């Protein structure tokens, strides 16, 4: 088992080291948490891209990428992620351990750590602005990405349902922003966003692998002194009631229609029994032996996919499926029917055991991947406590059928989003 050491450096910086000899690679992940805000979300997303593409020492993308290639194909990446009503900027590096270098004695891990630090704290800025060509290139990439979201109909439908359902909440904000917002971003704006990240962000730094990262810890401690944080309130609004069900249909030139249903449960971190809800979700539509898979797909042959997912920070759930337009109604009815089965307690012991075993299997496997381990810990920082995979398994084992029925009965339909093909107009 890996040795995990989590210790706060000061009021806003926590350093977690996961010492694990079995991996051939190792990684450093810097997660900076900020409130999710309509104005700053696209700025932070472009910032993450710009920061990870150069630094003072390697002032253009190619020189940086050549350096990374020489470090045996090491990777450096920057992105943002929505976590409840907050945003995290993730800047990370990963690559092979020193002992696998072709040339003996090369200090690959240390070089990567220094590069990452240099990108975050000594970026390629002049005066109070980032390099204009870097900013323009990364703005365009985000603009392309916004357009590409429209290309992927499944992803697009989920995004639309989220926007509609949370139109009046922070959670409805897209981390990419709108095209108009991205277009307006200036190199000076990004400088302000960078300063805000350094001065007001809550930092969770995680290192994983066999390398000794004490020096990394010291480096970050030097750069990130204790600070009175002015504007960093990180919480998530959880709404459990539904007044009126939203129904929205979009029409596009597609051959398969999409159905996305958004539900509110009110069960969320840090106060709710989210473990029971995770199990409930798994029984409903989380596996290939779930109620939705077995009935909507296998029994009725209505679709190729029908699955559910639960967001434990926001307390919401989504059910997604791709069906013929004429089968939207039958699919919808069967999904609601299966949900009612859950609410009425029509759950077999086999279903509960299977869901638990599948959770245990997935959770045990977390420890076998650097990326999964990192996400396991950093995604829990807003939870009421941070559990190791072993602790989470013990908790899931203790959940009873009554807990599941209770959870199921909090699930309320909020939004029905459909994307249908053009022939519907002619019907």
């Amino acid at each position, binding site marked *: 088992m890996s040795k995990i050491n989590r210790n706060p450096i000061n009021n806003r910086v926590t350093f977690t080291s996961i010492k694990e000899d*079995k991996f051939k690679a190792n990684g450093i992940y810097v997660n900076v948490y900020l409130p999710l805000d309509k104005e700053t979300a696209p700025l932070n997303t472009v910032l993450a891209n710009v920061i990870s593409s150069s630094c003072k020492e390697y002032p253009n993308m190619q020189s940086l990428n050549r350096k990374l290639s020489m470090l045996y194909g090491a990777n450096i990446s920057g992105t943002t992620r929505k976590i409840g009503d907050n945003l995290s900027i993730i800047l990370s590096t990963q690559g092979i351990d020193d002992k696998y270098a072709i040339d003996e004695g090369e200090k690959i891990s240390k070089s990567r750590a220094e590069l990452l630090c240099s990108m975050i704290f000594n970026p390629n800025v002049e005066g109070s602005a980032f390099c204009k060509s870097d900013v323009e290139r990364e703005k365009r990439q985000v603009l392309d990405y916004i357009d*590409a979201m429209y290309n992927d109909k499944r992803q697009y439908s989920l995004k639309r349902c989220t926007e509609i359902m949370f139109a009046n909440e922070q959670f409805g904000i897209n981390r990419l922003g709108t095209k108009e917002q991205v277009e307006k971003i200036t190199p000076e704006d990004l400088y302000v966003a960078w300063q805000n990240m350094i001065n007001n962000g809550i930092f969770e730094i995680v290192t994983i692998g066999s390398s000794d990262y004490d020096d990394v810890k010291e480096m970050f401690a030097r750069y990130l002194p204790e600070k009175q944080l002015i504007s960093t309130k990180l919480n998530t609004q959880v709404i459990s009631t539904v007044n009126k069900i939203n129904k929205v249909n979009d029409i596009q030139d597609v*051959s398969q229609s999409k159905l996305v249903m958004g539900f509110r449960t009110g069960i969320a971190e840090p106060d709710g029994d989210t473990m029971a809800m995770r199990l409930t979700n798994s029984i409903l539509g989380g596996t290939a032996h779930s109620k939705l898979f077995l009935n909507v797909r296998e029994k009725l*042959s*209505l679709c190729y996919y029908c699955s559910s997912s639960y967001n434990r920070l926001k307390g919401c759930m989504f059910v997604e499926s791709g069906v013929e337009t004429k089968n939207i109604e039958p699919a919808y009815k069967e999904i609601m029917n299966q949900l009612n089965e859950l609410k009425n307690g029509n759950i077999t012991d086999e279903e509960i055991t299977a869901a638990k075993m599948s959770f245990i299997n997935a959770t045990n496997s977390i420890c*076998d991947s650097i990326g999964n381990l990192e996400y396991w810990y950093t995604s829990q920082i807003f939870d009421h406590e941070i559990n190791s995979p072993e602790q989470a398994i013990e908790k899931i084992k203790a959940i009873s059928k009554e807990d599941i029925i209770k959870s199921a009965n909090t699930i309320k339909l909020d939004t029905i989003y459909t994307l249908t093909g053009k022939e519907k107009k002619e019907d």
Partner: protein
Amino acid sequence: MEFTKISSDRIGDSYYKMLHPSGLTIYVYPKKSYNSTYAIFGTNFGSIDTTFMYKGEKIVVPDGIAHYLEHKLFESEDGDAFAKYAKTGAMANAYTSFDKTCYLFSCSDNFEESLNILIDFVQSPYFTEKTVQKEQGIIGQEIKMYDDNANWRVMFNVLTAMYHNHPVSVDIAGTVESIADITAEKLYKCYECFYNLNNMSLCIAGNIEPQEVLRIVDKKLKPSPKQEAYSIFEDEPYEVCQSYIEQNFDIAMPSFVLGFKEKAKQRVATVEEIAATDIILYSLLSDASDLYNKLINEGLINDSFGYEYFEGRGYASVLFSGESRNPEKVTEMIKLTIENLHENGISDKDFEMSKRAIYGKSIEILDNPDNIADILISFDFSKRELYDYINAIAKITKNDIENRLKEQLDVNNCSLSVVKPFCED
């Protein structure tokens, strides 16, 4: 009957290989102190295998049958494999590609039970007209989902533009029309011809020892007769069919695939050839290359850009793909740089850099049991060994690269496939 141990000092790992008396090739790659184990059981039979010889008879089956068979194999007479896995906690799946069909699971507990399920259901075909009929709706929706996926279509369009006769240009799942011709009888025929253990491989990586695997499978493997079926492919001309192909979708971002067709040999590529190609492509168009940086700084591509060496039985090509608002310009610049590469070769600096990067990435992959087992199985079907590939990277010379380059990336033999939004009018 013993395992051969294959070790690498460089990597500090070993794996084990055996040709089991039943005909099955077995690979086991122990990963100490891992919690999970990943097993994959596959046959060297994929979507391209629609015309074959069996006992002197030429058999032609509908497009998409390998994929259909994959779906239906999950059902046995005594129930569905997913339902059985539900009792062990394993996460199970399957996939069909151009040249193989694989069934897999990963688990942290109950390995023996899960492996028994896998070996059993893949060896127990059970198809009736009724169960075959039921799948039409599910696979029909899978096909429609891909029909709407512009990134999927742009890939098949380039294959259509490049290949005259080879079935690699046909969609893996077939079409709604072609799968309507699939019957239980045809599924049984394909099964009999290709789900022969001599044509299959079992690869396991993770928290497991080879003797343990052997103890379990020994009881389960049914010896197979000699493998007699073999696919036949019409002769494929060297030249591409058309240099450009375009399709419109309800999308906002255009994308492209640019394919350079090469002469497919009588055999699939060796580890040395694969290693050389990896280095050529890295130096040409990785994010550290001159060309990539030029393209991205001029706004012609974005970080969705990628490339692959697309190679299998009877087909070989290099594919460059990504989103772009000006794929023609990207093509022009890529061709120009390739011409220059043929003329001047790779610089020492680029060679060294690419070699190190490819080497590092090939080591990093070994952290993941899923990746290991996937590579072992596809390498086995191509008669390659994993550590030979890694050693080939470490030992490669510039001379190897120059020789390889002679048979690749012919600028006069490429096709560009583009998907675009509908014109607004």
